């Protein structure tokens, strides 16, 4: 326990780093994932193809490699020094967006076509079909898998440790310079992650129960 109480400042910074990566990356992933997901289900063949290529390529690229491109290659191309945590957040967002897009797409696919056809037969406009019939149903089936995507994102924030970002994954390196026991530090990091993941999983279950679709 002394490893934590003696170095509260560092642990605080590390936790902040992880949370910034998580929420920043999550927000970016939602924005980008929404756009790509919309492209994937759009009636425009070009947009569908672009979305498919993006999703398939990025999903088959290791996150470490994506972060490698952002952390090392982007600053060379821009000829500028960029904050490491910003680059890591971008990489996490771009990577996670593919999973968000796929979750949205499969969520929309769970709505039976008859629902939309019936709505159109009633004379509802596109906007009404979406907001009154399709999206309410799709949202419900999307929320549990979307939470799983975010749990995966939380664990993925540790990868930023390899690219000089202070977070829970890299707090070991900083603490070992202060002469702390690395084994104990890492065991505490594990405990923190298990607790955080369980917290998100609990939230997921609560939402699942609340939003369950009766079909």
């Amino acid at each position: 326990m002394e490893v934590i109480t003696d170095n509260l400042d560092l642990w605080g910074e590390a936790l902040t780093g992880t949370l910034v990566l998580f929420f920043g990356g999550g927000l970016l992933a939602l924005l980008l994932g929404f756009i790509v997901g919309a492209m994937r289900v759009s009636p425009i063949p070009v947009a569908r193809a672009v979305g498919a290529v993006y999703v398939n390529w990025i999903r088959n690229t290791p996150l470490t490699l994506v972060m490698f491109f952002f952390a090392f290659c982007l600053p060379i191309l821009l000829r500028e020094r960029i904050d490491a945590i910003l680059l890591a957040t971008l990489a996490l967002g771009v990577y996670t967006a593919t999973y968000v897009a796929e979750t949205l797409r499969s969520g929309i696919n769970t709505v039976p076509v008859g629902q939309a056809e019936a709505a159109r037969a009633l004379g509802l406009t596109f906007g009404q079909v979406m907001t009154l019939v399709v999206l309410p149903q799709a949202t419900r089936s999307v929320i549990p898998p979307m939470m799983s995507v975010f749990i995966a994102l939380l664990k993925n924030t540790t990868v930023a440790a390899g690219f000089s970002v202070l977070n829970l994954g890299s707090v070991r390196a900083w603490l070992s310079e202060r002469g702390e026991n690395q084994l104990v530090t890492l065991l505490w990091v594990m405990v923190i992650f298990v607790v955080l993941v369980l917290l998100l999983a609990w939230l997921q279950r609560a939402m699942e129960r609340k939003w369950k679709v009766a079909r």
Partner: protein
Amino acid sequence: MTSVLYDVPGPKAIARNRILGLVTIVVILAAVGWVIWRFAATGQFSADKWEIFTYGAIWQRLLDGAVATLTAFAAAAVGALVLGFVLAVGRLSDRAWIRVPVGWLTEILRAIPVLVFMMLLYYGLPVIGVRMEPYWAVVIALVAYNGSVLAEVIRAGVESLPRGQSEAGYAIGLRKAGVLRLILLPQAIRAMMPVIVAQLVVTLKDTALGFIITYPELLYVIKLLGSNAVYSSPLIQTAIIGGSIYVAMCLALSYVAYRIEQRTKRRQQQQAAEGGTPHHPMGPGGTDTELIALQARAGKLDPGSAPPA
């Protein structure tokens, strides 16, 4: 074609879709053009940046890196499959003193980030006098994580089977072990094959984490070669070439998963056409989403609950 989102397009919609298609093309071209412009502006196209790839020895090192990646992947894949079986069988046990601890172990292993586990093995264990090569840290961490995920996949496969399957097994006088080995597991594995292979893609991708704990796999070689000032530090160039090798390997394995999935679907359709009862363990959703759900739903802490009826 009509879908949930849009009707068959009329003349207006066709015109609008064309315009939107053009806009998409313009945006993509602009993005590609920007990258090419930045490449040109920072001299990435100059010959000395690419010269490194004219040497056979450099390609040999990239190849060595790829082999190191594949070696770690192969060992981790075999280990994860074995561990997955053991944990799945343990969690399906009738004895609570086996089922509950195995359940907790599976959940905890799934909740720990792979990289943190690797660090624990590589940086943490030397504190108590256990030293290991980066290779073993990578392999053991990957086995622990992917094994626990595969255990859940296999268990989900077994539990999604119709109850009549095991009842019929018991009825002809098989014991628990026989029912599991001869009736439940073969069907579960067949049904879950696409998800299992997809999880192996995750394993292959995660070998890249070895880069962070100095395991000399492909990404490590890329960084090493790319920082070499003798070849005017061609970091972007090596990342593009080496990264393509990585992505090609993962895409190839993903394609295998895709083919297996297609084959399973076809077989189910055949069965349905022949009047049999098609068996949909995953439902119509994409396997990836299911996979993430299995990986991350670490909070379903019900290690003690008996298999549902």
